[in-house]
């Protein structure tokens, strides 16, 4: 594990700036008049599926031209600017990588294409950062989702870019890998990098991002310090779906808890509504332990998130 350095290692402050950026496809507006500036630190781009997060990230990544407005990376337009990639790393959402390559070959190829001075050393370091050493010589085609994701992250940071853009980086990762990746991103942010990641899972953004951009139906619904936005978000019931070894008994036990607003068991799916988002995971863990029920899965539902977003938009 690499120790966190005390001071920033990134010399020049990197910035991403959107000025009234919009993007439409025919009559469909995917991103609508969005303006913000990103500086060093971690920013979470939060929004339901189809809200325009990927379109926004693709515009910042130089893969889509804005239909109107400007998307600037370090003061230069992102579109049509290949030199920008010397200082920018991208982790696309799509799982595809070169399946016939080993993880090591893939990361090394990215290092060479980035023209780093010592590609071998850079690839070794990046693979170690994402803890992919044990699988580095296997073809990517044999990787699990989480391993692929880590290989993609290693490839994106192999040239140590000051700006890192990640589209749903935690998809497919198990909880341990997720924690490790969050630690890695925090470490890179502490080194002075500008990191923007998208997610449709509120909890991921809550745990990682200092600043948050909430995008709903192509518009920026809220932006700023996460704690302030969270207060808006937590001031209303949240819904989780739960899978356990005995959903019915767990439901009965949960109903007795004061912070549980409601429990339903429809078609074998246990759904729990809670008035306290923050303490719910502790509450359910305590109840499960007391009733000797094993928890398999605990997911904040998209519907809950959608209602948070509509709540924000209304507010």
């Amino acid at each position: 594990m690499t120790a966190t350095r005390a001071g920033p290692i990134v010399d020049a402050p990197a910035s991403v700036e959107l000025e009234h950026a919009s993007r439409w496809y025919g009559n469909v507006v995917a991103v609508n008049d969005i303006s913000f500036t990103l500086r060093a630190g971690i920013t979470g781009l939060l929004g339901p599926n189809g809200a325009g997060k990927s379109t926004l990230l693709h515009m910042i990544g130089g893969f889509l031209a804005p239909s109107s407005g400007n998307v600037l990376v370090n003061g230069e337009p992102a579109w049509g600017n290949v030199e920008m990639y010397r200082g920018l790393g991208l982790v696309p959402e799509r799982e595809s990588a070169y399946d016939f390559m080993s993880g090591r070959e893939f990361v090394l190829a990215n290092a060479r294409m980035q023209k780093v001075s010592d590609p071998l050393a850079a690839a070794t370091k990046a693979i170690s950062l994402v803890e992919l050493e044990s699988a580095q010589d296997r073809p990517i085609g044999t990787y699990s989702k989480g391993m692929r994701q880590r290989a993609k992250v290693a490839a994106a940071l192999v040239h140590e870019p000051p700006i890192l853009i990640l589209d749903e980086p935690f998809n497919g990762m198990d909880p341990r890998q997720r924690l490790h990746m969050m630690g890695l991103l925090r470490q890179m942010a502490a080194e002075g990098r500008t990191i923007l990641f998208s997610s449709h899972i509120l909890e991921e953004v809550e745990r990682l991002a200092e600043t948050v951009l909430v995008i709903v139906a192509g518009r920026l619904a809220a932006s700023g310090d996460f704690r302030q936005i969270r207060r808006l978000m937590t001031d209303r019931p949240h819904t989780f779906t739960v899978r356990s070894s005995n959903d019915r008994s767990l439901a009965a036990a949960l109903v007795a808890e004061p912070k549980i607003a409601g429990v339903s068991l429809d078609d074998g799916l246990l759904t729990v509504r809670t008035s306290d988002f923050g303490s719910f995971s502790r509450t359910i863990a305590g109840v499960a332990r007391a009733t000797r029920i094993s928890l398999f899965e605990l997911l904040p539902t998209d519907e809950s998130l959608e209602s948070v977003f509509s709540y924000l938009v209304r507010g």
Partner: protein
Amino acid sequence: MNMVIAQITLRQLLNRRRTLLLLLLAGLLVLIAIIFRATGGDGARALTFTGRLLSTFGLATLMPLVALLFGTGAIGSEIDDGTVVYLLAKPIPRRTIIFTKLAIAALCSILLTAIPIFLAGMIAAGGPADGLVVGFTLGSVIGSLLYCAIFVALSLVTGRALIFGLLYVLIWEGLLAALFAGTRTFSVRQQSLAFADAVANVPAHVLEAQLPLATAAVMAALIFVVAVALAVRRLGRFEVSGERA
């Protein structure tokens, strides 16, 4: 030319099962020549047979099919599966990506077309046959390069490059160029035959090009430049769609 992209492209193109089918097709050309020779084909009959074999099987069938699969797959497969973003998100000019992809596609096509044509020609004719074999080999090198340029550009214009490419080969090259003299000027096959004819010193019934060499050379250069310029332009403006459909 970028060596990393070249290596990736080479592995991509050669790793596929369809490459094995192309090898079989190339092998079939040589096999036909061997069978012809083994069954006593020689003399004037051998020259005529070699001309027909290399023209119909070599230039009209093997060359466009090989170039179609390699040309459309060189960057088209990365566009299809999304891996193209790993090339685009690098400080590499788009034209370098196109030149590299085209060079590798053309190299693979030439290897799988020109070598079998040369071997089949030498076997069937029992030797160089007054420049006939070298002529067809040269024609296939030029034709492969042109076809690859067209098919690389096509894969950046449409997501169905393989189908449109096949239709182009069958309808434009196979049908229209045979029926109408005007369309022959734009036919890669006819241009390749013109180059072959320029080198070969054989009777007209063995090989007779329907395009003058100068016309073929000018049109070939024009087609190549336009196709490459189109591919560079398309990749320069290539957009990776944001939301998943």
